[in-house]
């Protein structure tokens, strides 16, 4: 895992960040700093800009204006380095439907240069409770199983900053409990977590900081 940010380097710094889709501003002049070692709960109604913000931090999108810094690196000019340190659990699973659970993880493992990607994939599938579906194509998976596999995919990256967009969605109660355990484990391992969820009670129990968005702006919760 990459070293966590030093005490003085914020895990995440947003400087006047705006993002526009066509005529609509999804984020408007957002400024925020997440200190190192703290985890952030991101709340807001549907369409408030949570997913856009997570995608900007993950470098899946570029900002229309402003600057995003992740672990002290600019998310536009130093994009490759940021991508190596960040993992995104998104609404889209990033999973190939015609590959098996194990093959999906092995492709990512090989791209990351992980040693023995098959062993690591098997260990992660065991961790997320998918051992019995290792060789099954993703096309036959339920929504909850896809979410579990996407979590295994995130863990394969061993990120310094984990961005979790509605991680409890589509999970059954046991899955939600497992997910809470995964988040706690990530934090214990030094990973900074940014969590976007509508389950505020659960989020507050896992995060020390909170940012509430409304129409792309930070407001008091």
């Amino acid at each position, binding site marked *: 895992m990459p070293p966590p940010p030093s005490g003085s380097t914020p895990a995440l710094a947003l400087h006047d960040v705006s993002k526009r889709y066509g005529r609509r501003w999804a984020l408007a002049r957002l400024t925020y700093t997440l200190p190192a070692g703290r985890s952030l709960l991101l709340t807001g109604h549907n369409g408030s800009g949570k997913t856009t913000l997570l995608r900007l931090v993950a470098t899946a999108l570029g900002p229309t204006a402003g600057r995003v810094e992740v672990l002290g690196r600019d998310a536009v000019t130093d994009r490759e380095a940021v*991508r190596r340190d960040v993992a*995104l659990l998104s609404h889209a699973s990033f999973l190939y439907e015609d590959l098996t659970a194990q093959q999906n993880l092995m492709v990512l493992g090989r*791209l990351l*240069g*992980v*040693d023995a990607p098959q062993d690591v994939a098997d260990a992660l599938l065991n961790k997320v409770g998918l051992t019995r579906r290792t060789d099954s194509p993703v096309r036959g998976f339920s929504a909850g199983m896809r979410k579990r596999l996407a979590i295994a995919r995130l863990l394969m990256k061993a990120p310094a900053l984990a961005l979790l967009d509605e991680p409890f969605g589509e999970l059954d109660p046991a899955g939600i409990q497992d997910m809470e355990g995964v988040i706690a484990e990530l934090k214990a391992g030094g990973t900074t977590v940014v969590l976007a969820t509508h389950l505020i009670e659960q989020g507050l129990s896992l995060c020390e900081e909170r940012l509430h968005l409304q129409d792309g702006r930070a407001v008091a919760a």
Partner: protein
Amino acid sequence: MSAVKPKRAPGLLKTTLVLMRKDLLIEWRTRARLNALIFFAMATLLLFSFALGPDTKLLERNAGGYLWLAILFASVLSLGESFRVETENACLDGVRLAPADARAIFLSKALGNALLLLALAVVLVPVMVALYGVRIVTGVGDLAGILVLGSLALSAPGTVYAAISSNARARDVLLPLLLFPLVIPALLSAAKGTTLVLQGDPMQQLGSWQGLLLGFNLIYWGVGFLLFPRVIED
């Protein structure tokens, strides 16, 4: 957390091979794309022979052109499908954010598409020989050279345009609209070269057409390699 220890990010070549292996694995598991391509291209060849009637001389003279038109039409299906698997579940985002070098994504897609088109061409040649009554005059090596260069020439610009059109609503229309005008020099060279292979080359013109195809490949593989990162990032 489990002890995942990324050793060192793989280089351009290794990333290309990992992604190409993934694409071929998906193709092998479904085989839908290759089967569709073969039947579509064979039907095209057959339709040309029906449309032109029993004029065997005309069929013989234009066999090279019909072969490459069938491959070109089929390539649109192949190229579009190669990015459909990436847009499903936003897999291309997953690969970009892994992170994988965008140039490796281009190389893997373009080489994979070229390989598929070459396999298609290899299947179509015997069909063309049987349907149009032609024979290979100058040698199988000459024909293989044209097939390889022609497949590469369609796949490099085709991969760039397939990526551009993959998120468009009218992608099935957009891809041929963008691709067909651009590949006219490659289509012409491949068709002329194939015709010379089938009818003999007394004026030693085959080398010139192969040279033109090689030049086309150098330009568009170079342009695709340099531009593809901008295409998928912006």
